[in-house]
């Protein structure tokens, strides 16, 4: 079920299959416990053809082990990605970084979305490095958004803005509309 076009260096992405219910803790969004009946209920409620919310499983290339999942909300213009990495994985940052390298060309360049948003914790060095290497714009910093044991960290929103829709010089600090008007003048 591996999507050949969604394969990176160490992971690949695929759609959900029935047997994923036995590994729900690895991919299912949320922090609470998930067993097979809860996963089945999730399939029934959430996994529908043509929905704006889509769910993909993240697997290791070498072993096919499920190591996470992602929810992707998208319409014809915008995408919004949230990652979940299995709680036992000690290479979560590398997994998210590789997922970013797969998703950005797919959503920005192939699907031609205007803007795709990725939420990344401010202490996720690998994912931040991948986002910057891919040319994403740091658009939003929500203070103290994520709880860690004994402290909190900011959440960063990196955005993959499509230069075919919004020219690169218009991405960033001031209103795109103001820049567009200035550019037209």
């Amino acid at each position, binding site marked *: 079920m591996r999507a050949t076009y969604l394969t990176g260096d160490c992971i690949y992405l695929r759609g959900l299959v029935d047997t994923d219910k036995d590994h729900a803790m690895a991919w299912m969004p949320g922090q609470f416990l998930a067993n097979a009946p809860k996963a089945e209920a999730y399939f029934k409620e959430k996994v529908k053809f043509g929905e704006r919310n889509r769910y993909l499983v993240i697997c290791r290339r070498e072993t096919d082990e499920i190591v996470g999942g992602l929810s992707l909300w998208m319409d014809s213009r915008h995408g919004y990605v949230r990652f979940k990495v299995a709680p036992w994985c000690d290479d979560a940052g590398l997994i998210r970084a590789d997922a970013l390298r797969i998703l950005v060309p797919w959503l920005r360049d192939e699907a031609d979305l*205007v803007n795709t948003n990725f939420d990344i914790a401010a202490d996720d060095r690998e994912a931040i490095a991948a986002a910057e290497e891919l040319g994403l714009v740091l658009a939003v910093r929500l203070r103290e958004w994520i709880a860690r044991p004994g402290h909190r960290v900011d959440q960063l929103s990196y955005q993959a803005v499509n230069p075919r829709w919004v020219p690169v010089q218009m991405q960033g600090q001031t209103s795109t509309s103001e820049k567009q008007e200035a550019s037209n003048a």
Partner: protein
Amino acid sequence: MRNPVMIGERIYLRPEELGDAEVIARHAAEETETFFDRRFPSSQIAHERSIREAYEKEPPEYISFAVCLRENDRYIGLVDLMDIDYVNRTAETGSWIGTPEYRGSGYGPEAKYLLLEYAFDHLQLHVIMSHVWEPNTRSAAAVQRQGYRPAGRSIADDNQAGVWRDALIFDILRDEWLAAREEWRARQRER
């Protein structure tokens, strides 16, 4: 007052009831300023479903309050908490005074402070965010008066008449809300 949760000087917040759906849909149809749901006609049936579904999960991910006048129980708008995360203790706020004659008279801030009190003191949330479509300068100024701080902008959030517009993002911590509410109360006393 009918089933109040949070009570202010002139308004109170109560859980939405199915009967509110017709008023919400009518307000949305008559909207000229804030472009609720990006100016797409909204269905009373959809609003009824949304209200029904909001009560199915416990704890809820979405909480919407009806904003009502204390003097006559009239429904004038709504305030809501979206995407509530009980582990990270975060949420997004929204507000909409759907009845134009009640805009610009302090009802919106009063409702927002009651909502934030519910979020910070009843749900024990830590930080709240809000987003404002950039052309809505009144809302952008209002959330900053309420204590929110600029957190960034979502680029090319929407396109209207061929022009891309950003969404402005704000966040607020509990201490900032307390300070802003005190300032607001002081201004109200001076009036």
